[in-house]
Every structure is written in C-alpha cells, then in structure tokens.
C-alpha cells in the first residue's frame, strides 16, 4: 500500500524584507505518519507552519491539501477543508469550560449562524464531536472545568483536543511538548502515537528524544532552509546535521 500524501508544500519561500525566513522548503505529509521538523530557534519552523496553515502568504511556492492547490485559500477555508493546527503558546479560551472550548472548535465544521434562538450548549451534533475530541485527548474527567484553571499540561492537551474537534485530516502541531514535565510528556507522546492512525501530523518540537522516538520522518531546518530530510536514522547519520545542529554540543 502506498502512503497517501495529504499535505504537500512545494518550494515554499517567505521573505521579510531582505530576510529569508523560509527558503524553498518542500515537504510532504502522509496519512499515518509523523513528520517532525527540527531546527534551532529562528530556523523558520513556526513560519513554515504559518505558511502551510495559511496564516501568512508565501512569497513564492505552493501548498496542496488533499490534492487541491490551496495556496491562495484563506486560513479558515483551509481549516474547514481538514487542516488543523495548534499553537506554541496556549490559545485556549480561558473563561470557557473544557467542553465549550472543544465544542466551539467543532462548530467550525458545522457553522449555522442563522439559528439565533438555539442554545449552542445543547447542540448535540457539535457536543458529540467535542466530547469525542476531549476523550481522545484524555480530558473526559475535566469537561466542565474552566480552561483557565487547568494545569499547563492539561492546557496543552486541550490544544490538541480543540484541534481534533474540527475533525482534521492533517495536524500541524507547534511544540506540543513545550514546558511539560516527564509524565505529561509521556502521556502526550502516547496520544500522538495514537493520533498517527488516520492523520498526517507535522510536529515542530525541541525535545529531541521525543522527536526521535515518535517521528517517522524528520526534516532539519537551518536558517530557513532544509539541510536534511529522511528517517530518524538517516538524519542521525547525516554529517551536515551533526555539524550544523546536533554536533553543536
């Protein structure tokens, strides 16, 4: 069985004035695999995610989602087509409950702005998706807790759950492990491993141990450009990576 490519970036470039933040990066995300992007601070990883998700427009290059050219689609349209992302900093809605955070995300797929008399909190179709997403992220016990009161790790889980609630095909995860303790990291890795089935995942992460444990493919970026890409073993073996990145210490 050949793997199905869900998201493809081709020769993506983004310049800020004279500075090239992302330099002709191409990559493919396949269903059922985790593709990690690593690199030093300022290597252009977050910009890459922003280009793929449509938050910023590329200076040149092309993005394909599920076979269609989405380069000129605005972000919300890409999201509705099955592209989910999480943020490096928590972007949950702190005053809402966990379930409402997820429900609102689920609502994005079933927007019915005209039914102004209907109570959103009793809207079963979105609630079911929300409960399901929360359950998969391991938050079932905390459904009614205001998101602002969650622990840091739980907030990161909620980020993922909100992402899942939109029923995406592709997940772009920006440092989901940032700031987590060992135990929380383990839980998150288990979650990612489970999510791999049926989704294509792009993982930007600093925790090298985690990346090498879970990633199927790794792309290494330095100064906006890709210097190596391949299986974890390939990357580990790559001389360039060693000198440019891993070998630093």
């Amino acid at each position, binding site marked *: 069985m050949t793997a199905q490519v869900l998201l493809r970036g081709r020769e993506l470039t983004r310049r800020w004035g004279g500075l090239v933040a992302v330099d002709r990066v191409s990559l493919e995300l396949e269903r059922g695999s985790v593709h990690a992007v690593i690199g030093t601070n300022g290597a252009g990883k977050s910009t890459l995610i922003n280009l793929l*998700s449509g*938050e910023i427009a590329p200076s040149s290059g092309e993005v394909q989602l599920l076979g269609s050219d989405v380069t000129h689609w*605005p*972000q*919300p*349209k890409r*999201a*509705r087509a099955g592209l*989910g*992302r999480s*943020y490096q900093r928590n*972007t949950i*809605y*702190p*005053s*809402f409950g966990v379930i*409402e955070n997820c*429900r*609102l*995300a689920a*609502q*994005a*797929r079933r*927007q*019915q*702005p*005209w*039914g*102004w*008399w*209907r*109570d*959103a*909190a009793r*809207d079963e179709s*979105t609630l079911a998706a929300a409960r399901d997403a929360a359950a998969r992220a391991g938050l079932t016990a905390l459904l009614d807790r*205001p*998101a*602002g*009161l969650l622990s840091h790790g739980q907030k990161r889980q909620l980020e993922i759950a*909100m992402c899942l609630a*939109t029923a995406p095909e592709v997940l772009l995860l920006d440092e989901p492990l940032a700031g987590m303790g060992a135990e929380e990291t383990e839980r998150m890795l288990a979650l990612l491993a489970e999510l791999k089935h049926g989704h294509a995942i792009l993982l930007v992460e600093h925790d090298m141990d985690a990346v090498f444990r879970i990633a199927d493919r790794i792309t290494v970026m330095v100064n906006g450009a890709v210097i190596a890409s391949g299986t974890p073993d390939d990357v580990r073996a790559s001389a360039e990576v060693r000198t440019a990145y891993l070998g630093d210490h």
Partner: protein
Amino acid sequence: MDRSKLAFVVAVFALLAAWPLAAGSYGVDLVTKIMVYAIFALSLELLVGTTGLVCFGQAAFFGIGAYAAVLLSPAEGASLVWLLPACVLAAGVYALAVGALSLRTKGVYFIMVTLAFAQMAYYVVHDTPFGGGTDGIYLTAKPSLGVLDLDRAGVLYGFTLACLAGTFVFLGLLLRSPFGRALAGIRVNEQRMRATGFSTYPYKLAAFTLSGAIAGLAGFLFAVKDGVVNPELMSWHLSGAVLVMIILGGLGHLRGALIGAFAFALLQEFFQSVAVFGAFAKHWHLGLGLTIIGCVALLPRGLIGLPARWRERLGGRAFARAALPAAEEAAR
C-alpha cells in the same frame, strides 16, 4: 444563565413594569429615557463586550434611527408597522456599510475609523439642509398603531419596556447560540478562531450590522419620546457616554449594560440635584467625574463585579479561586 442572574433580570423587569404605578409623570419620563439608553448600551455591549470590537461611533446609528423616524414620518403621523422597521433598517444599512469598511482595521485604528464615520454622519445632518441644520427638526406627529399611540407617555413607556425586554431576550438567546459563541470566541482569540475554520469577517460584520440596527431602534424610540432630533444625537460625546455606561456596568455581561445605563443616568440625576448639593449642584460634572474615577480605581469589573468583590472580602480564598477565570480574562 444561572438562577441568581435570572432572578436578578426578572426582578429588574418586574420593577420596571410596576414603576408607572408608583411614579409620577416625570419618573415615567426619566425611566423611559434610561430604558432607551439601556437599549442603546445593549447594542454597544454586543460589539464591545461580546465581540471585542470597540466602536467609538455608535451614536451615528442611534442618530440615524432618530433622524429616519422624523424624516420618514408623514405630517399626519406614520404607522408603527412600517416606520419602526424602516428606522431600524436605515441604521442597519449604514452600519453594514461602515462595518464593511472599518472592519478592515484593528484595535485603536478601528476605534478611530468608526469615530470618523460617525463624525461624517454628524456633519451631514449638521451642515446640509437635508438634516435641518444645527437646531434640528421636529417630529410633527408621533407614530401609532391602533391603541398603541406612542404620543401617550404611559403607552410609550410600555412600548419602550417591551423593546428593552425584547432586545435583552434576543441578545441573551443570541449570545448562547452558535453565532454568539463564535462572537465570544472572536473576542478572546480571533486568530485561533480563524485557525479553527471560522471566517471571522462575516461574523464581525453581522454583529456590527445587528448592533447598528439595535442602536437605530433606540434612536427611533428617542426621537418618538422627545419629538425633536438634532445633530448632537450623533456627536462623539454620546458615543463616549454610552461606552462609559457599559464599562461602568461591567463589560461582558448584558446585565452590565442595563446596570450601567441606570447607574450613569441616576448618578447624573443625583449630582445635579439641588436638594442634595444646593448651589454646588451647578458643578455636578465634578462629582460625576470623581465617581467615575473612583469606579475605575476600585471596581475594575464594573458595578456588576460588586457582589463578587463583597463575597471575596467575606469568603476569602474559596471565592477568589472561582473568580480566577474572570480575572484572567480581564488581564488578557
């Protein structure tokens, strides 16, 4: 809405319904005015408190509703059936146009663009013969519908109360609907909403238009109540005053707009009262200003945060913890 909030709202409306039985004609007049301002404040609350769009030109929609009521009325008086919708529509259409353009900007720039459009409307009625100039124009005959003759103070009071209740219930339902939840999400984090798949612009535009239309309703009632309109109805002073009302009452709650409108009007009455301040009453702005400053310093969440604050004082940490999300939100 939990039970205590519901009880509060029901009590307020019951009191308002009973008020004409107790009050004289001035009292009825005063509360009619305050209720009109409350509807106006609710319209802005939908933008500022719910959607996070700070509009500094809300008076334009209010004024357009009022001017439409006067300009569209034939000399022998109009029927409510078409005049009221026409006024609301006029304000809504202007809001749609203003919103479509101004929502391209953000933050302080949005505040200023809405102000600019309001000033434009102000100068159109102020400087052109169309608007009757500085001294304004009179509404010769008030609209009616069968027994619903708005020329009678009692009827107008009842009608305004019904409009206020209708607006409140409508917004209450709207805010818990999927549309309202999306607006709330946009206020907290618009970027996240876009990443989730919401095209936020149409949502904001819809909220802006709706808000303008409701302000137009308030303006219509104001014109009918006073029987005269003038450009000051569109001045930035009024836009500022209504903003003060909702902040004073407490942002993020429909009840806050209600409380704020009453508090602001009653504070003015209080400081202007010769009975209390004697000759110093002519300097009533001083008292009002100091009270507003005091409220900012001591009541960051507005008057609506008052009970929670008392509970914190009395109950200590347990309540403080429950109040955390609100605080966190306030700090955003």
